[in-house]
C-alpha cells in the first residue's frame, strides 16, 4: 500500500496539484475528502485506491473518459461527485462502493449502467441527468432508500415498474426524455413532493390523484390535450406548470387547490379560464401568455396576493385592476 500512496503522490505532482494537497504521505493517506473538481484531468490513476479513508471525492468538471476500476476499492466513499465529464461507462464492479449515499453523474455520456450498480442499496441521492440512458433495469427497484432521483435529459422511452419499493422518494425528475406513458407504480410513491415531467411525449396521465403530498408538478412541453384526473386531490400543490401543451380548457377543479401560488398555463390553446379562478387566494404568479383568451374572468380581481401576471399574445386582453399587482406584461 505504501508504494501505491507514493504512486498517487507522484501523480499529484505530475498534474501540478501538489500545492493543494498534503505533502506528507501519512496525511495524504488519511484524507477523508478530496476535491479535484475543474483540474482539466483526463484520467485518474489506479493509485487513488490508496486513499482508503476517503469519504467524499469530487471530480466534477474534468475531462475524464473513464474511472479506474480500483476506485471501487474505496470502501468508505459516501459521496462521489463526477458531474460534467466524458464518462461513457462505469467499472463493472461499481457496485462494490457499498457505502455510497450520494452519487452525482450528471452530464456524462453513459448509455448503460453495469448490473452491479443496482446493488448500491444505501444510495439516497442519485443524479444521472444529461446522459444517454435509453433504458433502466427492473433491478432499479432495489434502490429502496432513494429520496432524490434525477434522470432528466436522457433517452428513456419507457420505465419499468420500479417505484413501489421507494416509499421515501420525495423528488423525481424525469424531464426531457421520450416518455409517452408513465409506470403505474409512480402512483404508489407516498412521500412524493416534486414531480418533473417536462419535455416528454405524454398525451395523458395515469391517475396522479394519489400524490396528495405533491407540492410541485411540472408537465410543461408535453402533448396534453386535457387534464384527465381530479387535480383537486393534490391538496398540497403550490406550483403547477402546464406550459406548451395542447390544452383547450382547464378543469374548474383547479380552483380548489387552496395552496397554489404559481400557475403557468402559457403556450396552450386556451380560450378561457375557469370562472372560479379568483378562489386561488394564495396565487402570486399567473402566466397565460400565448393562448387564445379574449376575456379574463371577473373573479380575477379577487386574487388578492397576485403580484405577477403574464397575459400577452392573447386576444386583446387588458391589464386587470389589482392593487397587489407589481408586474404585468401588458400596460
Amino acid at each position, binding site marked *: 500500500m505504501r508504494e501505491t500512496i507514493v504512486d498517487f503522490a507522484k501523480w499529484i505532482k505530475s498534474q501540478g496539484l501538489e500545492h493543494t494537497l498534503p505533502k506528507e504521505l501519512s496525511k495524504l493517506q488519511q484524507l477523508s475528502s478530496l476535491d479535484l473538481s475543474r483540474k482539466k484531468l483526463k484520467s485518474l490513476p489506479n493509485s487513488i485506491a490508496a486513499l482508503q479513508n476517503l469519504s467524499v471525492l469530487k471530480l466534477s468538471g474534468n475531462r475524464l473518459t473513464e474511472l479506474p476500476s480500483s476506485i471501487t476499492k474505496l470502501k468508505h466513499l459516501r459521496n462521489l461527485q463526477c458531474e*460534467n465529464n466524458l464518462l461513457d461507462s462505469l467499472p463493472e464492479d461499481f457496485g462494490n462502493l457499498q457505502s455510497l449515499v450520494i452519487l452525482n453523474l450528471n452530464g456524462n455520456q453513459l448509455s448503460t449502467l453495469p448490473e452491479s450498480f443496482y446493488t448500491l442499496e444505501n444510495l439516497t441521492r442519485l443524479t444521472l441527468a444529461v446522459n444517454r440512458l435509453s433504458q433502466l433495469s427492473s433491478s432499479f427497484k432495489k434502490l429502496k432508500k432513494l429520496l432524490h432521483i434525477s434522470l432528466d435529459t436522457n433517452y428513456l422511452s419507457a420505465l419499468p415498474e420500479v417505484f413501489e419499493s421507494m416509499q421515501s422518494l420525495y423528488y423525481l425528475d424525469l424531464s426531457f426524455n421520450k416518455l409517452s406513458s408513465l409506470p403505474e407504480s409512480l402512483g404508489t410513491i407516498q412521500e412524493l413532493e416534486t414531480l418533473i415531467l417536462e419535455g416528454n411525449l405524454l398525451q395523458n396521465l395515469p391517475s396522479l390523484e394519489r400524490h396528495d403530498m405533491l407540492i410541485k408538478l411540472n408537465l410543461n412541453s408535453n402533448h396534453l390535450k386535457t387534464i384527465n384526473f381530479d387535480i383537486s386531490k393534490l391538496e398540497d400543490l403550490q406550483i403547477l406548470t402546464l406550459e406548451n401543451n395542447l390544452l383547450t380548457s382547464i378543469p374548474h377543479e383547479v380552483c380548489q387547490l387552496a395552496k397554489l401560488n404559481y400557475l403557468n398555463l402559457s403556450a396552450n390553446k386556451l380560450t378561457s379560464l375557469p370562472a372560479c379562478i379568483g378562489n386561488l387566494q394564495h396565487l402570486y404568479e399567473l402566466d397565460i401568455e400565448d393562448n387564445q383568451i379574449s376575456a379574463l374572468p371577473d373573479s380575477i380581481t379577487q386574487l388578492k396576493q397576485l403580484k405577477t401576471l*403574464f397575459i400577452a399574445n392573447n386576444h386583446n386582453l387588458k391589464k386587470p385592476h389589482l392593487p397587489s399587482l407589481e408586474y404585468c406584461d401588458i400596460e
Partner: protein
Amino acid sequence: MPDLKSKIICECGQKSIEDAIEIFKSTTLPYKKAKKLVTECNQTCCRRPLMALFNMVEFGEIDYEEIAFLIDQKNSRYESEDDDA
C-alpha cells in the same frame, strides 16, 4: 476568449454567447421569458447552456469555458441522436 464569445449558444435564434449575455443583461424578465428573447421560440431548447449563462449573468461572472463545454455537450447529444436515427 474572443472565439468562445462568438460561439453560437443555440441553433434557435442563432445568437452567440456574447449576444445572449447582452440580452440577459438588458432584461429584468425571469429565465422562462428571457430565454425566449434569445431563442425566439417556445421550445425548451438549449436549456443547460442558456440556464447556466443566465445564472452567471445574474451572479456577475461568466465562465466562458464552462458555457462552451455545455454547448459542445448539447451538440454532441444532437449528433448522437442523429446517428441513432
